[in-house]
């Protein structure tokens, strides 16, 4: 189990033990009338600790919510926020839906492509940045928007994006990841 985890979660993230994670998940599940209803919250928590959802993490969640690994995998494959591989340190989630496109999301994508040499789905060689094009982030009044890990960066233009990427590049690595 532990070797599987290392393979799936190269960043290591919080380093929580399986036992401690299980206790956290059991606490989450206790709030719901049925254990399985805690599934999404458990997956979010496991991903926050581990950076992604390895098979071992999925099995652990399944044990806590009383579901088979197959059921947990059904969830992980359905919901886009659940990741089976850890994203780059800074996961640039660029909204590609209409309101953001009308306000220049394409220019932001071009700028990222030129500056970081990555397109949608790509990760920089140093693992610092990953670009994903995502559907509407529900922040249309402040378009264009990029979600980076947990935070929305709104009303961006090219220069603001450059400055943001400068700051992130200069920042020392810290545990992060979404979820």
């Amino acid at each position: 189990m532990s070797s599987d985890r290392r393979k799936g979660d190269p960043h290591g993230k919080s380093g929580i033990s399986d036992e401690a994670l299980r206790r956290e998940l059991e606490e989450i599940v206790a709030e719901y009338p049925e254990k399985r209803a805690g599934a999404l919250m458990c997956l979010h928590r496991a991903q926050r600790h581990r950076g992604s959802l390895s098979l071992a993490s999925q099995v652990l969640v399944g044990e806590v919510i009383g579901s088979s690994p197959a059921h947990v995998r059904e969830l992980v494959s359905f919901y886009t926020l659940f990741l089976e591989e850890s994203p780059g340190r800074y996961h640039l989630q660029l909204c590609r839906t209409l309101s953001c496109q009308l306000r220049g999301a394409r220019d932001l994508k071009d700028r990222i492509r030129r500056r970081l040499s990555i397109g949608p789905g790509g990760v920089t060689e140093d693992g610092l940045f990953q670009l994903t094009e995502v559907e509407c982030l529900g922040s249309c009044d402040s378009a264009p928007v990029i979600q980076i890990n947990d935070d929305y960066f709104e009303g961006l233009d090219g220069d603001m994006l450059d400055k943001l990427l400068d700051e992130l590049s200069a920042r020392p690595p810290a545990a992060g990841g979404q979820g």
Partner: protein
Amino acid sequence: MAFEKVLTRNVGNPAVLSLAGYEAAGGYVALRKALKEMTPIEVTEEVQKSGLRGRGGAGFPTGVKWGFVPRGGERPVYLINNADESEPGTSKDRLLMTHDPHLVLEGTMISAYALECHHAFIYIRGEYVREYEILMAALTELREKGYLGRGMLGSDYDLQVTMVRGAGAYICGEETALMNSLEGRRGEPRLKPPFPAQRGIFGSPTNVNNTETLANVPFIIERGADWFTGIGKERNTGPKLYCVSGHVKNPGIFELPMTITCNELIQEHAGGMLRPDHAIKAFIPGGSSVPVLRADELDVIMSYDDLAEAGTMLGSAGGIVMDDTTCMVDALRNLEAFYAHESCGQCTPCRQGCGWLHGLLTRLENGGGVDADIPLITELADNIEGHTICPLGDAAAMPARAMVAKFKDEFRAHVARKGCPLRDKVTA
């Protein structure tokens, strides 16, 4: 009578993030009134009298929906606050959650009391991490100070509120998909019947309401249904949050009565067009799923009924403004890419149809289209709409049919010129 903003009255006042600050601004007066002076039936009746209609998209009368929930049965009743805001063009519930989390909670709590529900859920979209944290902080303070739980606020009523985070699926805004998701399943809509009021989550009667809808409830209880019906127009009562995005100077969320027109919203409230030398070409009034309006159709009042009469919908009031640099084929292609991505895949017409629409529009935009493609878009839309379990298929079909009907010349020009005649494309 001047219109008074209530839903957004605390926006820009960070003091209301704390319980003390919210109460200093008049908060939880309505909850106390409901618990001490009114029975659950009386709260329900007041909401029925107010004429409040669902703010999430369908516009169904909230009090009537509450009336479907059986009382006194063996199984517990559940209330879900649907904060899974994800209709393109819509960001109004986020404003409430960010700036006034206690209003969101108070609305949920009073509504739960009305439904005789003892466990309510708030299902928030997974991307709204900070909004979740703000709500959780407010919820934690309520729990600690005896505003929730057994005998809350000295009453004999018990209520527990639990937050659930979605995980990136638009379809979970649909109430039966949301219920499956909340139960720890894939967000696949359910066949109806049974309706949620009969059999929702955990096999129990369940009521799902949009966040903005429930945020109106404290004001209806505190000020009375007559106050609410005095705002707007008949059958379209109360304050409404309008979103404006796209090619305007001041995009934003505006609280207004349902007597304003599209033109007033765009020109007066959203500051007019972004670029003065580019006029408005099209306006999607209610989020990406509703039929588009042309520039010459924008004197219509933005109420549920007026927009329906104009052949479109108020929907989630997610207004998207497009100026004359926007290619309508490309705008539609962008939206169909969204629906193709977000289709849950259960129903063939939606799963296949949305992808076909996207492919067809991509071909047209890139110059490979033929004349027959244009009626084919409409035919595809016809074959999706009404043939699926949930309204996602309709949501993909309606804008397609309207775009082709209203901008047919532009679609034809893409065939004739073998590509897009406009400089500015929406997507890369």
